[in-house]
């Protein structure tokens, strides 16, 4: 029983740190509150969808920025999508970089866009790894009978 309590405490602490460091915001709490017996995997499902969608968008952004003549409207449309979905799941840092990114697109600032793309890829990679850790910890607790 002690083992589960310790795992649960670790989970609480870890989750708190993600909020504290700005990776997640209150919208993530909203997602967690939507999870219930009829949908016990809701958070994992939505976040997984987000990962797939984000990866697709990051590929598109990389491709669009790699063109000899950059289509800023197309770029902005993709960033808008990523901005929306990151906001909807509470991925705060990604959302913030996307706001910057949209400004760079509007200004047709190539340097700015390249930098923003780099930043968004970094933030994505960080939050993905942290959320995967979070889900792993939840699984451990379930497996231990918690």
């Amino acid at each position: 029983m002690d083992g589960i309590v310790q795992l649960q405490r670790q989970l609480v602490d870890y989750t708190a740190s993600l909020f504290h460091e700005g990776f997640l915001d209150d919208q993530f709490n909203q997602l967690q509150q939507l999870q219930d017996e009829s949908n016990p995997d809701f958070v994992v499902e939505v976040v997984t969808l987000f990962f797939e969608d984000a990866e697709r968008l990051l590929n598109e952004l990389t491709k669009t920025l790699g063109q000899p003549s950059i289509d800023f409207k197309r770029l902005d449309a993709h960033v808008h999508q990523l901005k929306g979905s990151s906001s909807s799941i509470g991925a705060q840092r990604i959302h913030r970089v996307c706001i910057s990114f949209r400004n760079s697109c509007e200004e047709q600032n190539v340097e700015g866009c390249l930098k923003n793309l780099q930043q968004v890829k970094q933030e994505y990679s960080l939050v993905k790894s942290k959320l995967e850790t979070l889900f792993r910890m939840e699984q451990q607790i379930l497996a231990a009978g918690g």
Partner: protein
Amino acid sequence: MAAGSSSNWVMESGDVPHVLAVDDNLIDRKLVEKLLRNSSCKVTTAENGPRALELLGLTSGGQNTMNGRSKVNMVITDYCMPGMTGYELLKKIKESSVTKEVPVVIMSSENIPTRINKCLEEGAQMFILKPLKQSDVKKLTCQLMN
């Protein structure tokens, strides 16, 4: 209980509201669907305006694919969508005698007063800021049930 006219969106007590949710973003569609289901609504989703019009039976030559029993009681749509915007969809719904009584709610991640006013003037029931929360949806469905 008197039989309503075909355009009467007012529900009879005991009926579950049927909401059509329109959004081009996959994550947002999943989220709004869950939020509505949690508020005891039946939900149909559409990725874009034209598809929504099809489902509402408003496309030329199209039959109302939802028969009288599963008529739509409310439409909730994103504002920013490629092709037909939420505003354009709102206009089309309000222009048709078949659907003009259906309440239409507009969602947007951007808080732009001129945009909000434009939608309200065109007959939108409500304008909601994204990301959507359970409290937003509860407010909506309460209005619908009264």
